[in-house]
């Protein structure tokens, strides 16, 4: 009997292992929601609002995926992750997709077993200091104490930059962006370094934003984007084309307000993306109105950007590199056809 029950356990375990490796899309559909990894709270990108509902630029990517898969943007459960935890959470299957200002690097793409689906924010690392220090350039930071978040490319760039400039610094590492901000505000360090988007986000929530200045130097390329586990190509394709649909929709002038009208557009490209013609959605294993659902329920890339990061928000980030390729930026999505 003992032996029999052991065999039963072993068999069940094997079956479960088999089930776990089946398509993520099927798993997500079966459980009825997407488990989306976000930051532990970064204003504008992902943070719970007054009602406790997650919102932000990264959150809207999760909602877009939900709209594409379920026709409902709210079938998402959010897992707040620190910079340290995020990769393990994705590797272990705790989350289905990570949308958390994560820099696309070779090691992460190749060695850690991930698949970056594209870039949703072109960023670069910068420095923020208190105005009272009278520093106007990062080249004056020799001997400074620098606060930063551990487990990030930020640490590597910082070491490289100071070594290249022949300057010294002391680093103080924390787990979450909130802890870094508190230490910086408490004057435990002179400099706060992270991606510039993060600096603007943090500056928007400190008591006196005008007392802090973001230095002009950008010391790295930080293409931030969502990522999924390596090895499930269908799931990777869906995430990639949800992002591309957001960007393409903006380029084509499709907004949440006019999406319904655009469905009947005479422009064949727009009709294809909106699912009025062709079978793009079916090729992805989704319904044909997937992109229509995204844009009508969440908005296009530009709308999402303006809503959470743009001039109307406390962050006041200009589009810069993140403008469309034909409007002075480098935002460029492959054609949906």
């Amino acid at each position, binding site marked *: 009997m003992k032996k029999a029950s*052991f065999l039963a356990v072993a068999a069940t375990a094997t079956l479960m292992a088999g089930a776990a490796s089946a398509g993520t899309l099927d798993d997500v559909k079966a459980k009825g929601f997407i488990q989306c990894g976000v930051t532990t709270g970064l204003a504008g990108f992902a943070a719970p609002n007054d009602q406790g509902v997650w919102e932000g630029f990264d959150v809207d990517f999760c909602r877009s995926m939900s709209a594409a898969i379920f026709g409902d943007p709210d079938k998402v459960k959010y897992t707040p992750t620190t910079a340290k935890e995020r990769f393990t959470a994705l590797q272990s299957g705790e989350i289905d997709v990570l949308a958390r200002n994560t820099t696309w690097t070779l*090691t992460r793409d190749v060695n850690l077993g991930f698949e970056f689906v594209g870039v949703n924010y072109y960023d670069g690392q910068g420095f923020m200091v208190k105005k009272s220090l009278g520093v106007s350039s990062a080249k004056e930071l020799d001997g400074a104490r620098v606060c930063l978040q*551990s487990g990030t490319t930020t640490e590597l760039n910082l070491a490289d930059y*100071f070594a290249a400039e022949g300057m010294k610094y002391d*680093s*103080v590492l924390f787990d979450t962006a909130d802890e870094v901000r508190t230490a910086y505000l408490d*004057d435990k360090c*002179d400099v706060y370094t992270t991606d510039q988007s993060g600096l603007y986000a943090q500056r928007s929530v400190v008591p006196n934003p005008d007392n802090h200045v973001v230095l002009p130097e950008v010391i790295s390329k930080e293409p931030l984007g969502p990522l999924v*586990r390596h090895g499930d190509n269908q799931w990777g394709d869906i995430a990639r084309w949800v992002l591309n649909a957001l960007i393409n929709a903006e380029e084509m002038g499709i907004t949440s307000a006019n999406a319904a009208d655009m469905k009947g557009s005479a422009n064949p490209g727009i009709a294809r993306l909106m699912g009025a013609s062709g079978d793009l959605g079916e090729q992805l294993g989704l319904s044909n109105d997937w992109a229509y659902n995204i844009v009508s329920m969440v908005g296009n890339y530009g709308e999402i950007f303006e809503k959470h990061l743009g001039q109307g928000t406390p962050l006041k980030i200009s589009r810069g590199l993140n403008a469309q390729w034909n409007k002075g930026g480098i935002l460029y999505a492959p054609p949906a056809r």
Partner: protein
Amino acid sequence: MTADVSGQSGVSLWRDPKIRAIFFQVLVLGLFLAFVLYVGNNTIINLEKRGIASGFGFLSQPAGFDIGVVLLMDFNAQTSTHGDVLLIGMINTLAVSFAGIVLATIIGFIFGVLRLSNNWMVNKIAAVYIEVVRNIPLLVQLLFWYGAVGAFLPGVKDSIHLSENVYLNIRGLAFPKIIPEAGFMIIPIALIIGIVATVFVSKWAQKRQDATGQPFPTFWAGLGLIIGLPIIAALVSGIPFSIEDPKFGRFNIQGGWSLEPEFLALLLGLAIYTGSFIAEIVRAGINSVSHGQTEAANSLGLHPNKTMRLIILPQALRVIIPPLTSQYLNLTKNSSLATAVGYPEIVAIFSGTSLNQTGQAIEIIALTMLFYLVISLLISLFMNWYNKKIALVER
């Protein structure tokens, strides 16, 4: 006896308790091994499927990031490896744990004794400290100490000048650094000779007291030997070191040695928290010694301090040591909360940063667990040895 009889008398093997016991042990062991094999195999397959490289090769890869507090060795982001990160993490954990254990023991013994004082005021102060500190989570206390440092200490430019070239400010405590020059080794050697000599002197003093009843000021003699010998050695060898004073830089104090606020906050938090538990253990230990012992000592006319030191504490230690061991282990493990206050110990930099830069979760977590296991076992071994040594020898 009965088992043997039934075994020999041909009752089925299944009913023989000895054989049955062995059978189940083998079965459980087999199931456990099968489970380990299954999990291991599954892990390897999953790692391969996801294209995650495994192995310990990453330890020789350059780390690429800097560490705030580096003791005893050099670290350079460009050339040092993840193996060095592991070493620094271990050293930093051991440094704060060791300092924390010493400090917590001192605090614990002082407040444990004060808690039993007949003076109402002293007694209540000790009680308040113990009850308040014991009942607040350590993480909250760490954040309090880290934040409190910011609230009470001045900025770099307005540093508190404690004595010549010793400055206290929000960035920590800065003091002059000793830079060894040729012939420096004579000083630590003199220190060791001083310690060894002190041990001999105390043995000799004990013998002399046993034989003649004459007490000898062992404490002062030892202090003189341990501090005096190195000083004489330094003077005789022509002061083989130079001193680097801390100086004000553009942002911070440069040069010299400094204790960072992160280290100080962690040390204070750990020592004060664990100290309150040790105080309770000490109180329980002292209470366990029969009051008759105190009365007997009093009737001999022994000073209350000596009564405590020579009569009560040695007996109380039997009760104190085992739970004290467990507090030392707790303190060491609790040092892993350091990541909340930015102190770079093994969990923060190795199983935090290195894990994230390399993605070798399994190997790194295994090494970290191994480190804590070894440290815990060493502390246990040492404390058990000490416990045996001080146990009452019954004649």
